[in-house]
C-alpha cells in the first residue's frame, strides 16, 4: 500500500460522467481495434504512366512487371557490363519514375557522377591529375549520344581527357 495507487474504481467513479466517457471510449476503441490501418493503406502503387502510350498487341505485357520496381532487380542487373547501358536507358527514357530513381542509384554505386550542366554521367578513367575544393581535372569516360548520320546514331561511351569537373555541377 506504500506504492503506486491503484485506481479507486469505487461507485462514485463509475457513476460519475467521467467513467461513462471512459466506458464509451473503450467501446469505440474496441470497435476500432478490428479496423486497424494496414501498411498497404499508406502505400501508393508506383505505376509508371507512359508519356506517349502506343497500342500494342494484347499479348505484350500491358502493365509493368512488379519486378521493375524491385531495387534488388536493379542491383543485380547493374552488376553486368551490359547492365550499365540498361541503367542509362532507364535513366534517359523513364524519366520521373521509380525506375529512373533506381537506375541513378545504381549508377552512383558504380561511381558514375551526374553533371548537372551537361546532363551527362561521367566516370573517372583514372585518378584525376588535379583535385581542389572546387573541381577535379583528369580523364573521364562519359555516356553520350552519337549524332552521326542516320545509321550511326546511338548511345555510346567516350573518353574525355583534360576534363574539369566543377563540383558545383555535381548532383
Amino acid at each position, binding site marked *: *500500500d*506504500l*506504492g*503506486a*495507487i*491503484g*485506481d*479507486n474504481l*469505487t461507485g*462514485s*467513479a463509475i457513476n*460519475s460522467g*467521467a*467513467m461513462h466517457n*471512459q466506458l*464509451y*471510449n*473503450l*467501446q*469505440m*476503441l*474496441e*470497435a*476500432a*481495434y*478490428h*479496423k*486497424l*490501418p*494496414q501498411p498497404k*493503406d*499508406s502505400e*501508393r502503387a508506383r505505376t509508371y*504512366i*507512359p*508519356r*506517349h*502510350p502506343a497500342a500494342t498487341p494484347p499479348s505484350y505485357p500491358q502493365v509493368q512487371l512488379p519486378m521493375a520496381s524491385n531495387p534488388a532487380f536493379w542491383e543485380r542487373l547493374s552488376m553486368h557490363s551490359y547492365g550499365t547501358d540498361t541503367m542509362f536507358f532507364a535513366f534517359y527514357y523513364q524519366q520521373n519514375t521509380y525506375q529512373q530513381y533506381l537506375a541513378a542509384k545504381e549508377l552512383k554505386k558504380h561511381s558514375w557522377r551526374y553533371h548537372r550542366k551537361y546532363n551527362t554521367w561521367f566516370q573517372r578513367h583514372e585518378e584525376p591529375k588535379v583535385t581542389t575544393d572546387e573541381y577535379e581535372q583528369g580523364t573521364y569516360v562519359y555516356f553520350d549520344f552519337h549524332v552521326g548520320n542516320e545509321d550511326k546514331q546511338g548511345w555510346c561511351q567516350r573518353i574525355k581527357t583534360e576534363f574539369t569537373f566543377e563540383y558545383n555541377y555535381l548532383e
Partner: protein
Amino acid sequence: YSNIEPLEPDGFREQVSKLFAEWYRICELPGGSDAASTHYISQLHQNGLLKGDEMTDRFFRVLMELSVAHCLSSEVINSSGLQSPHQMQNLSFLAIDIYAKLVFSILKVEQGSSKLFPLSKILSITVKFIQKDSEEKKNSFNARPYFRLFISWLRDLLSPEPIGDGVNFQILTAFAGAFHNLQPLKVPGFSYVWLSLVSHRNFMPRLLIGNAQKGWPHVQRLLVDLFQFLEPYLRNAELAVPVHLLYKGTLRVLLVLLHDFPEFLCDYHFTFCDVIPPSCIQMRNIILSAFPLNMRLPDPSTPNLKIDLLPEIREPPHILSEVDAALKLKLMKTDVDEYLKTRQQGSSFLAELKQRLLLSPSEAASSGTRYNVPLINSLVLYAGMQAIQQLQARTPHGQSAGNTVPLAVFLVDAALDIYQTLILDLDTEGRYLFLNAVANQLRYPNNHTHYFSFVLLYLFAESNQEIIQEQITRVLLERLIVNRPHPWGLLITFIELIKNPRYNFWNRSFIRCAPEIEKLFESVARSCG
C-alpha cells in the same frame, strides 16, 4: 432551410457526383493531365464552388461522402468469415485517391494566386466530417479511408516540390491542428489511425527537425492528447487488449523519439510526467532516461565516481514546460515565493500546505487520486529551482551545488523546509506522490538531478520514521526493477544509498520484511556492483 443543417439545393448532390466522375476521367488520362485539370479547376471557380463559403463546405462534404462511401462499399468481407483483428478487409482507395488528388490540385493551382485556398478550410471541413461520421456510426465507424486521405495529402503536400516554398511548416502545423481536433478523447474510434498519422515519418520528424524547434510545441500537445486519453486506463496494471495495443504503439513512438529526438523528451519531461499516471513506471522511465545526443554518461557503477566533478552537473537542464503553471492556477505561487524569500517561521504557509494539495471529492473521483498531482509536481520542482539558484548564487563561482558546499549552506534553504513538512504531514499516498515528484527529476547529469538526489538522500538520512525510509526506497526501487531503460540519476542515487554507510541501508529492517524482498535486494546489490 432547417435551422440545424441547411439542406442542399435540389440536385446539388447529383451535380457534384457528375463533377467528381468528370474529374476521375481527367485523372485517368494517360501521361498526366495538367492542362485538363487546370481547366477543370477554373470551372469549379466559375461555378462558385471554391469561394470558401457554405457552398464550398457542402461541395467538399459531398465529395468526401462519395469517396468514403465508395471505399467502404468496396470492403470485401474475408471469405474466411470470422475476422481476426489483423485479417483486414481489402478496401479500394480509388475514390479516396482521386479526391485527395483533386484537393491537392486545387491547392497547387491556387499557389499562383494571392489567396492560397486555405488548406485549413479543407482540413476543418474534413475534421468536422470525421467527428460527425464517428458520432453517427459509433461501433461501425471505419477510420481507414481517412487514414489514406491524410497520408496522401501529407505525401503530396510535403514533397520536396511543396506548393510554394517555405510553406511546409505552415502545412505541418495546419495538420497538427487538425490532428489535435481529432484526438482520441474527441474521436476515440479514430485513435489507432490518429497515432499512425501523428507518428508518421512524413509528419512527426518534419515537425521536430529544423524551424528552430517551432514545431516542438505541436508535437508535445499531440503527445499530451494521447497520454490524457490513456491515463484512466493506465492507472491499473492489467489493460484491456485494445488499450494494450495503443499502449505498445505509444511505447514504439516514444522509443523513436528517445533514439532520434532525445532533447525533445528532455525539455518536456515535466509536462509528460503530469499526464502519465504514477503506476506507468516503464513508460515514464523512457522519458526520464533521455539525455542530450552530444552528452556521454559515465557508467553509474564506476567505483568512486565523483558526480560533483562532472562538468555537466553544474548546468541547469533545459525545460520548455511551464513549471509554475499549476501553482499560478491554484493561486499558490505568491505564497510559495513569499516563503522561499522570507522563510517566515510563524507563517501558516507550511501548516496549510497539505490541505492545499488535496483535490475536492468530485475531482478526486475522476482523477483516481485524492491529490492534485500536477500541483505537487509544480511545487516540488519550482521550489527546488529557486533553491538551486540561491545555492549557486551563494557558493563561490565554479563550485557545484553539491556536497562540496558546506552542508550548513545547503540546509539553509526554505525549499527543504517545504519538503520536510510534506514528508511528515502527508499520508502514505500523498508522500508517495511527493517522492515521485522528486524522483522525476533524477535524469541525466545536470544541477536538478544533483540537487534532488541530495534531497532524497537527505530526507532518508534525517527522517526518524522507518516508513519514510521505506517509501523512499520503494519509489527508487520500483523504477529500477522494471525493464530498461533506467534514468542515470536514478541509478547513481540508489547506488549512493546502498553503498554510503552514512545511510546505514543494510541494517534497515524493511529490506528483510519478506523473503522475496530480501532476495530482491541481494540481486539489486549484485547488479549495482
